[in-house]
C-alpha cells in the first residue's frame, strides 16, 4: 500500500500524514491496522441484528478512527450513518454497511 493508492482512493493523505507528525510509514501502518479493526465486523453484526444502539456505538467509534486517518470517502459514509443512528432513523442501514464494506475491500486490494 502506498500513499498514492490512498490518494487514488480519495483519502486526504496530506492531512493524515500531518496528523502522524509527517511520518508516512507510521501513517500507512495505522491505515493497515484500521482495516483489521474488529469494529467493521461489529458494525455489520449490529446492523444485521438491527441493534440501533450498538450500531451507533460502533459507527461512532469507527468514525473517529477513519476521521483521524483522513480516509475521507469511508469517513463520510460512516458519518452519515452515525447521524441517522443518533436520531434513530428507521432506514435500511445495510446500504451503508455494504458501501463501507466495498470501500474497505478497495483499500485491502492495495495491500
Amino acid at each position: 500500500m502506498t500513499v498514492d493508492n490512498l490518494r487514488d482512493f480519495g483519502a486526504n493523505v496530506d492531512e493524515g500524514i500531518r496528523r502522524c507528525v509527517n511520518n508516512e510509514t507510521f501513517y500507512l501502518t495505522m491505515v493497515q491496522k484500521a482495516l483489521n479493526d474488529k469494529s467493521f465486523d461489529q458494525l455489520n453484526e449490529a446492523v444485521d441484528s438491527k441493534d440501533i444502539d450498538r450500531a451507533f456505538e460502533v459507527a461512532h467509534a469507527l468514525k473517529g478512527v477513519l476521521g483521524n486517518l483522513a480516509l475521507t470517502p469511508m469517513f463520510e459514509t460512516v458519518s452519515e450513518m452515525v447521524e441517522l443512528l443518533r436520531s434513530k432513523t428507521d432506514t435500511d442501514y445495510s446500504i451503508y454497511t455494504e458501501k463501507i464494506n466495498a470501500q474497505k475491500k478497495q483499500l485491502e486490494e492495495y495491500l
Partner: protein
Amino acid sequence: MNDFRYSYGLKRHILIIDDEEINREILGNMLKNDYEISFADNGAMAYEMLKDHSLKISLILLDLLMPVMDGFEFLEKIKDDESLNAVPVIVMTSEKPAEVRSIKLGADDFIAKPYDSPEVILARCERIIQLYEDKSIITSTEKDHLTGLYTLEFFNEYIRQIDSLDIGKSYDALVLNIEHFHMVNEMFGRKAGDDVLKMLSDLLSDTFKDSFSIGCRPAADYFYFYLDHNDGYDKIVNSVQERLAGFSHIPKIHLRAGVYFDADKSLTPDCRFDHAKFACDRIRGDYSSQVSVYSKESYDADLYHEHLINDIDDAIANKDLTVFYQPKYFIQSDKPVLKSAEALIRWKHPEFGMISPGEFIPLFESNGLIQKLDHYVWEETAKQIKTWKERFGYSVPVSVNVSRIDIYDPELESRLTGLLKEYDLKPSELMLEITESAYSDDAKGLTDVVERLRKIGFKIEMDDFGSGYSSLNMITTLPIDALKMDMKFIRNMNRDEKSLKLVELVLEIAGFLEVPTIAEGVEDADQIEALKKMGCDIVQGYYFSKPVPPNDFEEFIKKELNKH
C-alpha cells in the same frame, strides 16, 4: 521549571484514555517526544492506574464513548476525589452537548476529533499543564500547610494591597508566640506540637472573625495578625490561652503577645511586625505578663543596647573605654590619709559621648560581656599601679570589680596571678571587690573561690553591703577583708533615722567581723564627721574627689608625698 525538567531529561506524564487503539497511537505519536505517555482502554482501567499513584500524571486526555466505564462516569468518579481532581482533563470530542456536560463534570478543555495538527494539540496540552502547575505553586506557597494561614511573603503582599486601598482606618500589628514551645515538641512529640499550632491558629482566626484580620505563620510558633484596632488584647490572649488549654491535653501552655498599636503605614509590613515581635520578645520568659505593647522608647533603648554590644571591642581597641580612679581615704587619723583607690570604667563613645556606667554595666552583666570589660580594667589598673610605683616610689593599692561571671571562670586565679607577675605587683596591691548579692547567690561556690584568692594574698572587699540579702548567719562565715557599705545608706543618713541606724549596724557587724568598713558616696563634711564618730575607717566619695583620670589622680599622690 520547564528548563529544569528538560535539562534533567524529566518529562511530564500524560495518560491517554481511549478505547480505539489507532486513536491512542496517533495521539501518543504526537506527544511522545515531549511527554511520557501511558494508555488506558477505558475509564475503569484509567481510574485504577491513577489510584495506584505510582504514576505522576500531569494531564489526562479522555475519550467520552468507551465500553466498561465511559468518559462521563470517569469524570464523575474523580471529581470528588481530592487526590485525583488536581489533575487536569482534556476531553476529546466534537459534540457540543457533550462539551457542556464535560465542563460541568470538571473537564478543563477539549480536543476535537478528528484531531487538529500535532502543533495545536501539543500547545493545548502544554497550556493546560502550565496553568495547573502555576495554580498549584501559588496555592502551595500562599498558605502555610499546617495552619492554613498565609505565608509571610503573601501576608506582606496583602498588607501592601490593603495599604494601597487605604481608607484611613487604623490597624494593629499583633505577634503571638508560645512560651517554650520547643518543650511541647520535645515532651509530647512533633505531632502534638503541630496539633497545638493548628488549634491555636484556628482559635485565633475564630476570635478575630467578626472584624477585619489577616493572619500568617512566619515561622515555628510565631503568629502574625494584621487587624482592626482593638483595645482588649489582654483579654483576648487570655481567653485564647484558656480555650487552648481546654482543647489540648498539654498542660500549661503560656502565650505571649506583642502589639504595635495603630501601626505606622509608612513603614514596610516587615518593619511593622518587627516592632510587634520586638515587644513580644521583650517579655519572653516572663510568665507574669502576657501582652507587651511596642513603644518607640523601649525599641530605641534596645537598639542603643545593641549598638553598645557591637561597639565594645572597638571601644577597648580605641581606648574609648578608660579607667578612672577614685581615692579612698582613711579618716580615723587627725587628717585623712590616702589609703587606696577604686578603679572605675568610663566610656567616651565616638557617637554618643560619655556613657554612664549605669547604662552599660547592667547590660554587659546580663549578657556576660562584663568579663571582657573586667579583664580590661584589671590589666589597665595593674599597669597603672606599676607606673605610679615607678614614678613616685609609692604604692597605691587599687580595687577592681570582680563580677559574678568571673568567679566561675576557671582561669580567674591564673589570670590575676599572671597580672601580678607581669606588672611586678604584690597581691595586696590589686584589691578585689565582689558584690554582696554574688555571695548570696551561691555562697558555697563563691566562698571556695574567695578563700583560694585570699590564700594567694588578695584582699577581698564586699561591695554594696546592705543592698543584698545576706543572712546574719552567712556573714559570720564570709571570708572577706573589708565591708563596703551601700551608698544609699550614706546618702540618707543625715536625713533619715533608719539609714543612720543601718550605718551604725553595718559598722557594728564590721567590728564583729574585725574588718574595716568603707563608706562610699560620701559628699559632705557632716557625713565625714558622723562616720568618723561611729568608727568608720575608710571613706570614698565626692567629698574627696570624683573618679578622675590617672593624670589627675597623681595630684593626690603628690599631696600625700608632700605630707611626709
